């Protein structure tokens, strides 16, 4: 399995030479490579056993041998945090290639090569078990996307690309400093002061330091803020989000799909991978402030989306709102919120990635994204409308689809935190629930205007619409672009969207399947922060609660005569023990 993981991560880059010079061969080759990667990563994800901590771990020494004080490794592995985002990266790249099939005509070879590099970057970020490797892959996602936006984007692409790049880079440099500080701190705990960058080792060392009281809160908070800078930009958290609408609007469809679907998730992933497990006290201390930012972002993003006229801009602002939900879940710091937040990252990738793909298909047909240019398209493009509705309902959290599963867990977790620990935060929970109402408003307004009402097609496409329809049966390849094709989805486009639809429904109907594979890792990584946040509520309340609880237990036992036990429960919780982080593999060289 570990070799398979290694192959999966580097397969797209290994396939680069196969991407030929001609457009047709380039896209076909890249599609085949991505399909292979998708199958492999899908196999890895579904082979991931429920209840496992880590899976398919591959590790080798890199620098440690020659420099005694340093222990640098190349390590890859999957765990509960990455198990779903990892295959999602391949899935959305698959979609991205299919939606670029005709949309990209100049520089196709470089375009598809950049997409493949981007895919390796994304897979690597989520599989990396070493801080340096994580950072290398992180930058490897940044540069291809910079070029994708800057070269294949729309009118203001240069400005957007530079803004995106500088924003992310500025944040990530601070994050890197924070990660270095963590490594140096953890080296203190080692007898020989070996500088390790391995994520599990770092976590373990830092927890040992914290247990000995050598990791004071002030230090934690400074490092936390440094990490926060990069992750918050990446998420993006209000008020650091302004690069996002710009980048989305200007990016080519493939870029938007991957940016929304995967790259934004690196921020949230970073919180879960680094901030929460390594700096639990700071996480608990900063949580109230971050929760406020998240709740403000939910409402603010939703309101701003309501006023947008450009479809892509609207969806970009909806992302600000939706990712506010993810962060809200993470920093509720209880299992419900964390599970919900992590699931919601996957959900958002499916729904928003899909929405951007659909908008790209509309743009390809009509060359505009202005909402008022459209009307009544459900009649003209019924299959496209079907997908749009599915994705919209996923996005607004309609029960039975995936968005609901994530949002419901997040909001339950947030409410529980507020109710049990800090009643003042109920305001945030209520605001977040109100964000769900606003989400329905702006999304239904969008689909209502574009797909319902009297048929209204933009002039550019509409002029040739009938010619396009007449030739609908025998349209092939590039032929249709010149004809101004405005027919319904082709088989290729359905293939791009259908897998997303399958997972949208599956996660909505049976989220437990997906949640169960997250649980062990998520619990092990977040437990210190969860505990810290509970003691944060004040020792007095905690003690009182303990006494209360004991009394109540006694009361209800006498009242009901039946002892409450879950000892014999077959599905009794058994995480932590199974988690690989407790026993790091011995260092061999």
């Amino acid at each position, binding site marked *: 399995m570990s070799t398979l993981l290694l192959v999966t991560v580097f397969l797209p880059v290994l396939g680069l030479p196969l991407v030929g010079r001609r457009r047709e061969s380039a896209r076909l080759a890249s599609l085949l490579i991505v399909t292979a990667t998708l199958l492999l990563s899908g196999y890895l994800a579904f082979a991931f056993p429920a209840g496992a901590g880590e899976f398919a771990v591959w590790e080798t020494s890199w620098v440690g041998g020659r420099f005694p004080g340093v222990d640098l490794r190349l390590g890859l592995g999957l765990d509960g945090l990455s198990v779903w985002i990892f295959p999602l990266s391949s899935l959305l790249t698959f979609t991205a290639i299919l939606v670029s099939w005709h949309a990209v005509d100049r520089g196709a070879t470089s375009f598809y090569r950049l997409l493949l590099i981007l895919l390796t970057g994304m897979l690597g970020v989520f599989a990396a078990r070493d801080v340096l490797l994580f950072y290398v892959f992180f930058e490897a996602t940044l540069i291809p996307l910079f070029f994708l936006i800057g070269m294949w984007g729309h009118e203001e692409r240069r400005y957007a690309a530079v803004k995106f790049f500088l924003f992310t880079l500025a944040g990530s440099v601070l994050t890197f400093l924070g990660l270095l500080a963590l490594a140096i701190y953890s080296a203190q705990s080692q007898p020989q002061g070996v500088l390790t960058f391995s994520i599990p080792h770092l976590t373990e060392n830092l927890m040992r330091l914290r247990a000995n009281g050598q990791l004071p809160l002030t230090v934690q908070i400074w490092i936390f803020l440094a990490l926060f800078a990069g992750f918050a930009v990446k998420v993006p958290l209000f008020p650091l989000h*302004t690069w996002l609408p710009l980048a989305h609007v200007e990016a080519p469809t493939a870029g938007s799909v991957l940016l929304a679907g995967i790259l934004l998730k690196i921020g949230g992933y970073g919180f879960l991978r680094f901030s929460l497990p390594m700096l639990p006290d700071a996480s608990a201390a900063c949580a109230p402030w971050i929760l406020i930012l998240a709740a403000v972002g939910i409402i603010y993003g939703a*309101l701003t989306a309501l*006023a947008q006229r450009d479809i892509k801009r609207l969806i970009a602002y909806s992302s600000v709102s939706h990712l506010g939900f993810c962060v809200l879940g993470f920093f509720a710091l209880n299992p419900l919120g964390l599970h919900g937040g992590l699931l919601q990252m996957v959900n958002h990738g499916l729904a928003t990635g899909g929405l951007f793909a659909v908008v790209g298909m509309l743009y390809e047909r009509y060359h505009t994204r202005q909402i008022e240019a459209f009307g*009544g398209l459900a009649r003209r493009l019924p299959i496209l409308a079907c997908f749009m509705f599915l994705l919209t309902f996923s996005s607004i959290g309609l029960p039975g689809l995936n968005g609901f599963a994530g949002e419901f*867990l997040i*909001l339950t977790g947030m409410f529980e935190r507020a109710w049990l620990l800090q009643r003042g935060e109920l305001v945030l929970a209520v605001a977040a629930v109100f964000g769900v109402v606003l989400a329905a408003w702006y999304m239904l307004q969008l689909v209502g205007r574009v797909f319902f009402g009297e048929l209204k097609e933009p002039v550019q496409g509409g002029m040739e619409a009938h010619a396009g329809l007449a030739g609908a049966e025998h349209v092939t390849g590039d032929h249709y672009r010149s004809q101004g094709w405005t027919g319904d989805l082709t088989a290729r486009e359905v293939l791009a969207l259908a897998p997303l639809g399958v997972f949208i429904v599956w996660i909505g109907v*049976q989220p437990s399947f997906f949640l169960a594979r997250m649980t062990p890792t998520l619990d092990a990584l977040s437990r210190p922060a969860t505990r810290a946040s509970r003691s944060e509520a004040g020792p007095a309340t905690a003690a009182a609660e303990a006494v209360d609880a004991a009394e109540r237990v006694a009361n209800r036992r006498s009242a009901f005569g039946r002892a409450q036990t879950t000892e014999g429960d077959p599905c009794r919780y058994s995480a932590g023990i199974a988690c690989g982080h407790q026993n790091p593999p011995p260092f061999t060289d």
Partner: protein
Amino acid sequence: MEYLIVLIPMMPLAAVFVTALLGPRVLRSNSHVPTVTAAAVAFVASLALLLMVYWATAASEKPFATTVQLWNWADLRQPELEGQVAAPDAGPLDLARFHVPVTLRVDPLTAVMQVTVTCISLLVSIYSIGYMHDDPGYWRYFTYISLFIFSMTMLVSVSNFALLYVFWEAVGLCSYLLIGFWYHKPEAAAAGKKAFLVNRVGDFGFALGLFLLWSSYGTLNFHDSVHPQTGELISAGILGGVRTAAGGQGYLHGGVAMAIALLLFVGACGKSAQFPLHVWLPDAMEGPTPVSALIHAATMVTAGVYMVARCMPLFDAAPGALLVVGCIGGFTALLAAFIALTQNDLKRILAYSTISQLGYMFLGLSVGGLAGAVAGMFHLFTHAFFKALLFLGAGSVMHAMGGVIDLQRIGGLRRRLPWTYATFLVGCLALAGVFPLAGFFSKDEILGVLYQQEGGGVYRLLFYAGLAGALMTAFYTFRAFFLAFHGEELVPAEAGRHAHESPPVMLLPLVILAVASLVVGAIFGPTGWFESFLSKTPGLAAVAEAGSHAAPHAGHDGHTWVVAWSTVAAVLGIALAAILYLGPGGLLRGVATAARSVGVYTLSYRKVFIDELYALAVVRPLRGLAIVAAWFDRYVIDCLVDLVGLLPKAIGALLRDVQTGFIPWYASAMMLGLLTLLAALVLF
């Protein structure tokens, strides 16, 4: 029994897939076959289920419920919260396990709802074969209808609040899709959106109620979970046997209980169109008429009533909340009846009538306890038949009149549409509450429990509101009836060659519903069968035992008085309508002028200006805020960001002068640096 409860929703679900896949290409004009078959099987299965539950309950005095778990929707552990008991004095449970199983339940309440829902669904599907026959979206229509039947049957049989919420919104989705079925009509699209959004506002409260339930009771299940092998109790469900058996001790009281009940009721207000969230239902009439009959009259809109009846123990723990339910219900009943007095669109009159009748159901529920639940549920049951009948009758009129339903443009149709006329009359009499039709018994039951309720003048006031509502109901119902079927014959041009009686496939459901409207009240009301059956529902059995409320049929002397008054109200209303609309025209004009001069007419005709008020107080401010937010984002936040971006440039500009390009300057700087380094070495 377990197979049946799974079979009932699975049939329509299968029909969804079959119709959606085969409808457009293969089935075409036969697209109704899967839906009708599924609804028929589901109806037969529901009847079988009802009988089985009846035999099971008849055998013993104990409440009856059984559950079947399909799969786990979510199952998360919270080890940090192990041992923390959420609700004081409550059953054995804690917040340590967030467990949402997909569990279906069978109990008397569910069985009654299943029969009602599947029966109306079957009849409406059959009727739709005729009504929708040449619509280009024929298969799409039946796909949505099947989806609705699935969602609704699931809604009444799930055993968990989270899943109740799931199907609560799922029926809302079907409603959205079916209201906007003719999506090319801008009004239909707008009405669908409005319905969804207003329901979302209600769901906002419902969701908060769920979170509060979870945080304070530590479970969302209705039923108790027991260990599969040992049979030990793992957690006591909110409406499960353990908690309800503990009586008042099983539930929280005070502010939290009040908050839970009120938040759940906000959800009920949204779905069941109660003031102030009633505004979506009249607009929902843009959808096809059979949809109005099925979803917006008989089944979906009653989900709120079902939910309150189901959660009666929670409401019983908060008497203040019950009073609020009563006040909202009573006010809505009056308000909607008042608006219905002057409307000219037959379907809208029926829509306001539905809102008003739902208000009655909540009035009944507000009494609390078993009596309240039975009163509300019984009216739900009878209302489903006669309101579906009225809507399908209106649909038959529409079908004949080429889609025209404006009472000013149609009239005197009794000769052209004799079957529709006769069945519509039965529906009107039942709605007005004339003995011995269905509406009489159920409305009477509500008024009876209100009258007998101890607990102060408010309930007495609500009783009088109910009587006044009954008077108005009788009046507006027969106003519409006389305008449509009596007087001079008036057929609009749109009718064309269609102006004749509907085909048998549409008349058959009308006749069946008319017969049902005639008899169901008399069969189940006075015999006490409905009440004794429902009292075997676990949650309701407990509130009956709690005995804090007056039994419904305890004092029959008061009851006679109530019967007399409600009959007088009904007859008076019909008589008034007859005098005004069948009598000399001068009288009507006089009354209308008088009503206009004091503004009452306009107030009623313009629906008390509530839509305008919302546009002014809610929609516009939020839109304004959205524009401000978008402006703020572009010109404030983004500018600040760009300003920060300028910072390196500014620093660069400062330092630019250092790089002069003169070799001597660089050399001297080098020397200076070297000297500084040396000095540092020497000094430290």
